[in-house]
């Protein structure tokens, strides 16, 4: 019983979004637009839940002196500094909050992102072994495309860049399309099960 109202809300909001897409007439246009904005507000408001959890986890670590607890103050201080500066100065450019974002948070993000350059190399070294014919295909097409990406490919044979273009235009497009169409069917079926309340384990399981 405790699930009836949440399921009704799920059904109503799901149907409003669908009808809004097909019917430009009021009230669906207004309802749909409002609902999208409301959804954004609720999802953003929930961030306090995560923030509270983050602080809770790290204070608990310090209190119980759990493994690596000495680093927890770093997280807490980093978090509070950003919050206080943000509330005090706002998000305007060149003020302290924006300064710390531009000079610390953004470079850290870029650095983590750039780790991928190392990881694609180590993954390629390990995974691209011609151990069976499917792995061999994976390896060959990756290798050909890499050759086609840099001058050395054309140096070996001037048609190699064309092979890259063909691999990207034909098999790659075909593969991507098959994955996309299949996944879309998965999304449609899962969404339907959500909207009609057939799948409800995300609400805590019990029927």
């Amino acid at each position, binding site marked *: 019983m405790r699930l009836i109202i949440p399921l009704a809300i799920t059904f109503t909001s799901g149907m409003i979004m669908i009808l809004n897409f097909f019917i430009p007439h009021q009230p669906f246009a207004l309802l749909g637009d409002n609902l999208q904005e409301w959804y954004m507000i609720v999802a953003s408001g929930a961030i306090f839940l995560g923030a509270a959890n983050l602080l809770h986890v790290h204070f608990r670590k310090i209190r119980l002196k759990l493994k690596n607890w000495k680093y927890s103050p770093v997280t807490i201080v980093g978090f509070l500094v950003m919050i206080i500066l943000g509330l005090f100065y706002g998000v305007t450019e060149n003020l302290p909050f924006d300064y710390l974002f531009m000079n610390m948070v953004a470079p850290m993000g870029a650095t983590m992102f750039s780790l991928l*350059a190392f990881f694609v190399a180590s993954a390629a070294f390990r995974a691209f072994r011609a151990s069976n014919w499917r792995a061999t295909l994976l390896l060959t097409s990756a290798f050909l495309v890499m050759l086609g990406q840099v*001058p050395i490919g054309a140096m070996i044979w001037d048609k190699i860049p064309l092979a890259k273009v063909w691999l990207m235009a034909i098999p790659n497009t075909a593969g991507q399309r098959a994955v996309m169409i299949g996944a879309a069917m998965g999304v449609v079926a899962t969404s339907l099960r959500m909207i009609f309340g057939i799948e409800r384990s995300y609400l805590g399981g019990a029927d």
Partner: protein
Amino acid sequence: MADIFTKIGNLDRRIIFVLIALSVIIPILTDLIIPNIVGAEPSRDLFEFVDSLPPGSNVIISFDYDPSTMPELQPMAEAVVRHLFEKGHKIIGMALWPQGAALGQDAMSSLSDSLGKEQYQDWVNLGYKTGGGVMIVRLGTSMRAIFPTDRDNVPWSEIPMLQGINNLDDIQLVISLSAGDPGIIAWVMMAGDRYDIPIGGGCTAVSAPQLYTYLQTEQMVGLLGGLKGAADYETLVGIDNGQAIRGMSPQSVAHIAIMLFIIIGNVAYFMQKKRGGAR
């Protein structure tokens, strides 16, 4: 005896990390320039199409990008503009993206100065116009109605090089430098498919695979994909130390390093398997 191939096969990945780092850092520090070689690829196709146009042809360059994709697209713009000027073609610049008009102006005016070309005689910047594909269709009937003036509000009738141009039929080639939508796809579908105007272009590496299909169906005469495409055009035009060519050097070295790793890994794997089989 520890099997050397097993060892190589399970190489500590930190060795790979060091070599990747070096293959990027050394070319940057030494300003290394690796000669670019252009094979039989879409960038050469575009170059050759431009080369084969009769001198004095009217070519539209549509600057459909913004500063965020400049590293890939601005070198293309400069190389293409240089080539068109050197061949004596007339460039009609325009933009489907608001900020593209200014980026196009940079490329055209600086090269026009250094190559002794004249605005309104050899090139014009019509500026940005909203509407994307719909606007392109209208260019098919009348260009002058869409662009009563150029970007600096000089009337169409006052611009010598535009006299005699009525609609897209008077254009010999459209080159769209495109970072997304609206861009090349709009030009292919609206100008290429409807009015049979040859379409070429340049795009970011991310969107290139999607556009390669248009080459397969011959809806485009050529395409510059990402930094490599830009470097190719620089090489073909003869800019030996161009921005894109320099940017390609660490890429080339690192790619070669990764490919060597793959080869070594496979050699080790097969030697290991052979020994395992012999035992």
